[in-house]
């Protein structure tokens, strides 16, 4: 297995107020489904406390963009003091949640992921050759793969901001 490189490190989004947690979760998973990512729900922790629910979810979806590069976007959703509230909107009663929310994004690019083992990391000289090739010869392709990953991450970030009705700006690389 090759070592993935961290491209985006701890991109945070925090929010406090009313939001629909289930709707947010479904928005995130449906975005990954539409983009062709494979899902891995690494952990899902929920504690029901007197002050409200304490939720910790970590999603680690991945996508093999080519036969050499793999995108991995790790999302950690951390919600505290989540309470169920009812609001009336246009005469319709809706059940949503209120609490504090923190979302952390990490994006990793893995090259030479291999089906069972990487092809270029079996021996030291092959690993050295792979590093030189990626840094100097195939620089453009590596940069392109990084661009795809960064664009995907910022697109998801924007969608979540839109969902939570936050001030946002479109960031494209």
């Amino acid at each position, binding site marked *: 297995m090759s070592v993935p490189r961290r491209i985006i490190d701890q991109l945070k989004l925090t929010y406090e107020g009313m939001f629909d*947690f*289930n709707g947010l*979760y*479904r928005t995130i*998973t*449906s975005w*990954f*489904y539409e983009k062709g990512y*494979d*899902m*891995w*729900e*690494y*952990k*899902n*922790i*929920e*504690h*029901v*406390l007197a002050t409200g*629910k304490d*939720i910790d*979810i970590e999603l*680690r979806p991945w996508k093999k963009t080519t036969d050499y590069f793999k995108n991995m976007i790790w999302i950690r959703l951390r*919600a505290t003091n*989540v309470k169920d509230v009812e609001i009336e909107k246009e005469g319709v009663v809706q059940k949503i*949640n209120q609490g504090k929310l923190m979302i952390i994004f990490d994006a990793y690019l893995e090259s030479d992921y291999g*089906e*069972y083992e990487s092809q270029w990391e079996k021996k030291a000289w092959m690993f050295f050759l792979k590093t030189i090739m990626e840094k100097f010869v195939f620089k453009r392709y590596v940069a392109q793969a990084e661009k795809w990953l960064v664009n995907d991450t910022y697109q998801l970030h924007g969608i979540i901001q839109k969902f939570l009705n936050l001030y946002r700006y479109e960031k494209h690389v």
Partner: protein
Amino acid sequence: MKSIDISPLTIKYKGLFDFNVLYNVMVQWLKSRKYLFIEKSYKHKVPSPLGAEQEIEFAAERKVTELLMEKIGIEMKLWDMTEVEVIKDGLTKKLTNARIRIIIKGSLVLDYEDRYKKSKVAKFAFGMYLKFFGKHEIGAWWDQLSYRMHKLHEIIKQELDMQSKGYEYAGYLGDNI
């Protein structure tokens, strides 16, 4: 016999839930998909002042082809288990108040009957098959097992009434049960 592991899925929950229903739903889900189901261990520890402790382990396996077998393992651990009576819609129900951790593990076992281990030629031929021809087939079975595990994961979240229920990959396998 070589096995390829699927990334495990973990759920931790603290609160009220119906443990009998959760247990039965998992067992019936596995049995309805023709998995050979075994309850590997059931440990009940002496209750402390905070509640009882239980450890349950399920193992399920299913032969999909002559060379491939799917295995699903579920490990459940409960702490501070106490029984609580709740009145819902005029009916009294017994629910469990506990901390629960469920880990769902899966693996694909290749050559489970060790047919290609008998001689060096057979071993070599099997290695070549895996390297050049079997990748796509194994990849397809890996995907299927992974999404089946996610489906079971989703059913558990529904039973525990967690905030993160709902799963967009639900119809991925065309299996709506």
